[in-house]
């Protein structure tokens, strides 16, 4: 055993001190229907180490993780796990080896309880029957450590996106996998939840557990990772043995060119009021007494911690949920919102936060998805003109830089590109008000800059833009004014000049 280890370290070109290698991937290759997605990628993960995997949307990060976790099979390449050759036959096989994966697309069982979701496939048994007491206890313990004070008997269906993501994390952490792959675990989380997650990861690291961490939030990488591996177009383009790498450098690695600035210059808004809401109250009690106005060319940010009611609020303004009181006024005319269709025709559109469940039709083509919501404009008197639909799809793909073909099923786009499709659909309508709920969740930096550019342009063209985001940098970098919500109440509206991290957080937690 000892001799073997010594051999291994001898044969290594670059002699490295440190803990033993837990997983090594060599020459991983994968193509989907002929299109190469991974080309000869190597990766090593050591004990007690967090390796960050970076790359643009579609770079192949999720594909690589799926191969390691036995979800899909590589076309070529080999893996060694704890000194043994490793070819997982199924996800179950990977789990029994000690490898766990939090999938990028949160996927839980809506009709089961939190506890059952956490332990699905490995319910604790005692005396031939399920030990429910133990299951509940371990689930709620883990949830508490993540900051979710909620009964483990709650149905997952009733949870909001963020809570669901926390359940997913709890599921992965209770696996006690020696290697845990976290594919964008914080996409739906706020700062507080993220901190708690990182504390957990830090502790587990001490105990010798290893992690592969995938995220588009570069500031997180610096905090949590020990090493960084960057993928671009399926190739490994850089490997940094420390996480303290300048952001510019990482951006260059990922995008292959310089990105000078993330946030564009936004022009000053014009005085004319476009959208005004007065005394809004949710029918389901998620928020109350919300009043604000958004002007022509203004970007209005809404900040708050998870569960503050931001999503509910913007959904109501866009007609998707019921209001029990208050008025929504557009261009000086009070609207009677009976559904999303009335809002859309009046000129208010919403890019929802839950892309898969509310934004995109996975089984349909990109062009069909783009045409959705624009059908009145792609032909005359209710007729659709196929040529127009095609041309429209082509144009919007170009305009937002979507990596995909019009005839491709949306399912096969990377998460970030799917989000761009949803944004493109609404941008094309040239609405009066566009509301974006977590517009860059799961979107890479390069594309994010492009989306910010689009948002700024929309504002410049005179639209009123509302941006809801849990990414404070994003809100602060884009918005002219920021409204802060806490527990469904309006805590205050800050000007660009006043708005900073501290001020916003003070209101959000106040």
């Amino acid at each position, binding site marked *: 055993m000892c001799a073997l280890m010594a051999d291994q370290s001898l044969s290594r070109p670059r002699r490295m001190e440190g803990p033993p290698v837990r997983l090594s991937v060599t020459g991983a290759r994968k193509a989907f229907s002929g299109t190469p997605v991974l080309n000869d990628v190597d990766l090593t993960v050591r004990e007690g180490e967090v390796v960050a995997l970076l790359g643009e949307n579609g770079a192949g990060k999720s594909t690589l993780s799926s191969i390691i976790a036995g979800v899909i099979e590589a076309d070529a390449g080999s893996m060694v796990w704890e000194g043994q050759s490793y070819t997982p036959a199924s996800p179950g096989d990977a789990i029994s080896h000690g490898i766990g994966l939090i999938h990028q697309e949160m996927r839980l069982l809506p009709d089961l309880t939190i506890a059952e979701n956490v332990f699905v496939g490995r319910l604790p048994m005692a005396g031939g029957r399920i030990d429910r007491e133990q299951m509940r206890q371990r689930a709620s313990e883990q949830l508490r450590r993540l900051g979710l004070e909620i009964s483990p008997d709650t149905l997952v269906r009733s949870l909001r996106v963020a809570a669901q993501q926390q359940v997913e994390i709890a599921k992965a952490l209770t696996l006690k996998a020696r290697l845990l792959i976290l594919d964008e675990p914080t996409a739906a989380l706020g700062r507080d939840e993220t901190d708690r997650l990182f504390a957990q990861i830090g502790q587990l690291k001490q105990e010798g557990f290893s992690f592969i961490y995938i995220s588009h939030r570069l500031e997180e990488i610096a905090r949590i990772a020990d090493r960084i591996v960057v993928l671009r177009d399926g190739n490994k383009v850089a490997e940094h043995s420390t996480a303290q790498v300048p952001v510019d450098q990482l951006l260059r690695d990922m995008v292959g060119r310089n990105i000078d600035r993330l946030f564009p210059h936004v022009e000053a808004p014009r005085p004319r009021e476009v959208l005004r809401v007065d005394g809004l109250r949710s029918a389901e009690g998620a928020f109350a007494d919300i009043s604000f106005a958004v002007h022509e060319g203004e970007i209005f940010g809404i900040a708050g911690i998870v569960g503050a009611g931001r999503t509910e609020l913007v959904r109501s303004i866009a007609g998707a949920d019921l209001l029990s009181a208050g008025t929504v006024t557009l261009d000086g005319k009070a609207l009677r919102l009976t559904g999303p269709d009335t809002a*859309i025709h009046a000129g208010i559109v919403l890019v929802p936060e839950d892309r898969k*469940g509310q934004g995109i039709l996975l089984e349909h083509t990109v*062009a*069909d998805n783009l045409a959705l919501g624009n059908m009145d404009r792609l032909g005359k008197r209710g007729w*659709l003109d196929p*040529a127009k*639909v095609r041309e429209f799809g082509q144009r919007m793909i170009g305009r937002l830089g979507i990596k995909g073909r*019009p*005839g491709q099923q949306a399912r096969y786009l990377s998460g970030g590109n799917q989000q761009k499709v949803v944004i493109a659909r609404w941008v094309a309508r040239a609405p009066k008000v566009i509301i974006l709920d977590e517009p860059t969740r799961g979107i890479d930096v390069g594309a994010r800059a492009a989306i910010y550019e689009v948002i700024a342009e929309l504002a410049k063209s005179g639209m009123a833009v509302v941006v809801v985001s849990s990414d404070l940098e994003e809100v602060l970098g884009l918005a002219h004014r920021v409204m802060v919500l806490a527990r469904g109440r309006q805590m205050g509206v800050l000007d660009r000049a006043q708005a900073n991290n501290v001020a916003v957080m003070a209101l959000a937690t106040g």
Partner: protein
Amino acid sequence: MSSSTFVASAGSDSRRSIWARLLTGSQGPLIGLIILCIVFSVTSDVFLSARNFLNVIDQITVLGILALGMTGVIIIGGIDLSVGSILALSCMVLGWLPQDYGVPFGVSLILAIIAGGACGLVNGLLVTRAKLPPFIATLTVMSVARGLANLTTGGEQVVGYPDWFTRLATVRYLGFLSATVAMFIVLAFAGWIFLRYRGTGRSLYAIGGNPEVARLAGIKVLRLTVWVYVASGVLAGLAALVLSSRLDSSQPSAGLGYELDAIAAVVIGGASLSGGIGGIGGTVVGVLIIGVLHNGLNLVGVSPFIQQVIIGCVIAVAVTIDKFRRQ
């Protein structure tokens, strides 16, 4: 390529013949149909004749009309088990009102269609308002409509329609086209145009894909859903007229089990029961497969028991071929 990928296929629309476009997404089932035809041409010397072709078309009209409505329902992710019973109720309304209440035949013709639509409306409201799963909603209407059909005349059949009416199904104008077959062709073509080139038609695919996405995109999901079930009911009413004209009588037992045939036809034609995929071209091919199968097996003289076995297998094979071709 699914028939919902309208744009992908439309990409080359201008270069493609109308036939190719009609059959978009249903090449798989079409292959099955052609194989069937070849097999029967070899095993029966009378199968391959113009006259037999017309017979088959005649024989599928009723099922075909039901399947058109079912296509819409399945595209939005629903299912309609009630079409057979609605057909029976419409048949009975048509015959019973003139017989027992002296309602003019023309009026009862309209009322029969309205009865179908009303049943469809109940389906639609149960699905959208009472939020019942379509399976249960239409199972309910299936039972109720059958009961009502029986109640009209106490289970008895009604015989004897005006001559002009029965001629609709029996006289072949221009030597080949009976009025009922013509109606089916017109309806199928209208359905095809609707699903392919109308915004509302395309919206049905979106609803089937994900109703919440569709709703947030401004589609009136509930209203359209109701209309789709109403359309299915109205078509069942029209099918009832065809059947009554064809048989020159109305029976409360008409259409028993037709719902499964109609669903099978739509699925053989490439639609998915989880919604969002399907099309009229495929459905017509599916209906033809079922029609040719029965006709061919009868011509060859296969016993009905063996027919059941063969039909089961052909359905499985047809859908399997389609599945694999799509991958």
